[in-house]
């Protein structure tokens, strides 16, 4: 009986450890005064540009098992319309992936493996949306972190929590969690000039960890009439 109880304790400790590892705790939001919350909400807009933009990045991917690869990504997004057009190609210019997200619908024009598998295209576009478009969910809380950074917490559909953190030096982070506080994604932006980061790092924590490092090649505003910005209806 004593041995069983000892095993039971060990089992509980093991389970607690597993839970601690798989579930990150959300950052604690400090509420100093209403003006600080309003200021935080304002600052949380900084990562998300207000007008249509075209950005070109080199993308270094680090995958489970130490596998690596570099591709080039072109993204055109229109924050007002909520549209995204994303193209991923090899360094030699060969297009591997071409898809657009428009009014909640995903259209894939080209997807060479591994981009053609299951929900891969949807996951890629979700990562792209997370980086470039403001969270669509309900703003649940806003305030400051212990270190003085502004934080806004959104609750999105499908039980997802999105934390947008803007540091005092204008670099920023976005983290997403399940309602169970299991961390899903972390995005960090560095070398920010005129609200556009020179480097973005995305880490995925789901079934297997992966990371993408996006280095800015070019960024330019585009008109809503340009190809890639227009919605499917107008093309």
């Amino acid at each position, binding site marked *: 009986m004593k041995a069983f109880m000892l095993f039971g304790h060990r089992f509980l400790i093991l389970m607690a450890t597993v839970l601690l590892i798989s579930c990150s705790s959300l950052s604690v939001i400090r509420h100093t005064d209403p003006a600080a919350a309003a200021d935080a909400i304002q600052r949380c807009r900084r990562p998300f540009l207000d007008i249509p933009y*075209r950005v*070109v990045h*080199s993308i*270094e*991917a680090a*995958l489970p098992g*130490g*596998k*690596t*690869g*570099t*591709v*080039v990504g*072109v993204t*055109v997004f229109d924050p007002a319309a909520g549209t995204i*057009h994303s*193209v991923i*190609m*090899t*360094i*030699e*210019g*060969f*297009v*591997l992936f071409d898809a657009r997200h428009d009014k909640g619908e995903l259209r894939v024009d080209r997807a*060479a*493996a*591994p*981009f*053609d598998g299951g929900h*891969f295209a949807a996951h*890629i576009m979700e990562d792209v949306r997370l980086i470039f478009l403001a969270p669509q969910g309900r703003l649940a809380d806003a305030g400051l972190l212990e270190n003085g950074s502004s934080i806004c917490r959104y609750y999105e559909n499908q039980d997802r929590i999105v934390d947008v953190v803007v540091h005092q030096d204008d670099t920023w982070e976005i983290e997403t969690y399940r309602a169970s506080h299991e961390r899903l994604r972390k995005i960090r932006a560095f070398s920010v000039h005129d609200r556009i980061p020179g480097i973005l790092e995305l880490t995925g924590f789901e079934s297997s960890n*992966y990371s*993408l*490092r996006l280095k800015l*090649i070019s960024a330019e505003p*585009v008109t809503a009439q*340009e*190809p*890639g910005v227009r919605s499917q209806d107008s093309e």
Partner: protein
Amino acid sequence: MDFTMIDSRATKCVFLIMMILSCPVMLGWADNWEDIQKESARIKSVSAHFSQEKHMQILTKPLVSKGRFYFQAPDSIRWEYTSPVKSVLLMHKGNIKRYTMDNKGIVEESGGTVEAMQIVLQEISLWSKGQFTGNKHFSATIKGTKGPQIILTPKEKGLSAMISRIVINLSADRPGVMKSVKIVENEGNYTLFEFIDVQINENISETFFREVE
């Protein structure tokens, strides 16, 4: 995003493009296949600067990359991008390696491209002899005489879904030099490679095809 799983058609396309680009002077300056094969036989090495313009509907102006490439008969290639992404592809005696510059410096990429490359290396040895006709992957036609144009059309359905045609322009004023290669994926989407400062049969050290630096 498992890059070891990149579509074999895509991998093959990329390396077939490499193969074509590795032969900028092998095509010679001729308007028939027999002369092209004759011209090709005298080519031992090639080096050149290149610019790569990617034209796409999503872009209003092309995405321009620059670099250098080196070829040594029968099948050694160094394909090096200097901007905007630093990258080196080395092919030598059946070994294929690719390096890119990341935040940790020059690193070797790990990917499953070797199998596709074995096929391509076999093709390179054929193309380096000017043997375009009877090619397994492309059918070839020549247009014009001085500064002729060679048009390659994919034979396989898998390839034709990725590339509609490849147009090779030979120099009109410098016999034996390829001026440009246009790889058309579909209307509005193509890649244009242009070559300058082409050097033929200069001595290139073997280590250049084995080591990245």
